[in-house]
């Protein structure tokens, strides 16, 4: 309680409560898809960086604030979302793409050519 209240009222943007966003990873034939839930976050408030094989995501949400209204339910604090992922060797880091839609950050992590499934045809001997 005290921590949640503090993050909203006093600390503000300088020192927000840090939370890990809800994340999902799906695997397709040619790529992994990493979906991160970032509700209330504009594109300009998302930062994605790659250092060696560590992919880091930080983001800040924006919530409405009024001086002439009373807040009667407060469940959404101002937070900093932070997540880091150790990418496996099979990901081709140069080809990573990011999209942003309806509060979701969708990263496409293509697999390296040599790990994509391949069909091997049999040549008649």
């Amino acid at each position: 309680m005290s921590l949640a209240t503090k993050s909203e009222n006093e600390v503000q943007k300088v020192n927000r409560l840090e939370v890990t966003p809800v994340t999902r990873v799906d695997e397709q034939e040619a790529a992994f898809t990493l979906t991160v839930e970032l509700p209330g976050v504009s594109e300009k408030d998302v930062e994605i960086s790659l250092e060696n094989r560590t992919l880091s995501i930080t983001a800040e949400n924006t919530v409405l604030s009024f001086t002439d209204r009373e807040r009667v339910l407060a469940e959404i604090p101002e937070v900093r979302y932070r997540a880091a992922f150790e990418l496996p060797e099979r990901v081709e880091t140069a080809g990573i793409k990011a999209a942003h839609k309806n509060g979701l950050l969708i990263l496409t992590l293509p697999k390296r050519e040599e790990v994509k499934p391949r069909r091997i045809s049999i040549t008649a001997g």
Partner: protein
Amino acid sequence: MRAYLNTINNPWRVLDELMTEFPYDLLNSAWRTRSGHYPRVNVWESEQGLVVEAEVAGVDPEKLEVAVDANVLTLKGSRAQADGTKSEFQRSFNLPFELDNENVKAKAKNGMLTVSIPRKAAAEKRKILIENA
């Protein structure tokens, strides 16, 4: 892949949710949720009416529905799941006053739904003059 799995089953999220949701429901008895826990909301009240913000990441704005019936506000929608199925959600609030369902404004951006609803105009008050006998 271990790092991915740890994030999906993130234990801190549970704590975050407890910390942000639990105390407010107890403190605002007039604002008790009637049903449902998702989506999370911030609600602002004034003489004019309400502003509600709801976190709806991944929900297509066309799949969102806001309904007002006297003093009950309902947020409804459906989300596409990873496996292609849909998950429906609904959350209703009992409000301490009646709302004007003719003038609801709603918009969705960046996975955040913002709804503003004016209060229902109160029945005209009649002043009764007391005569001096």
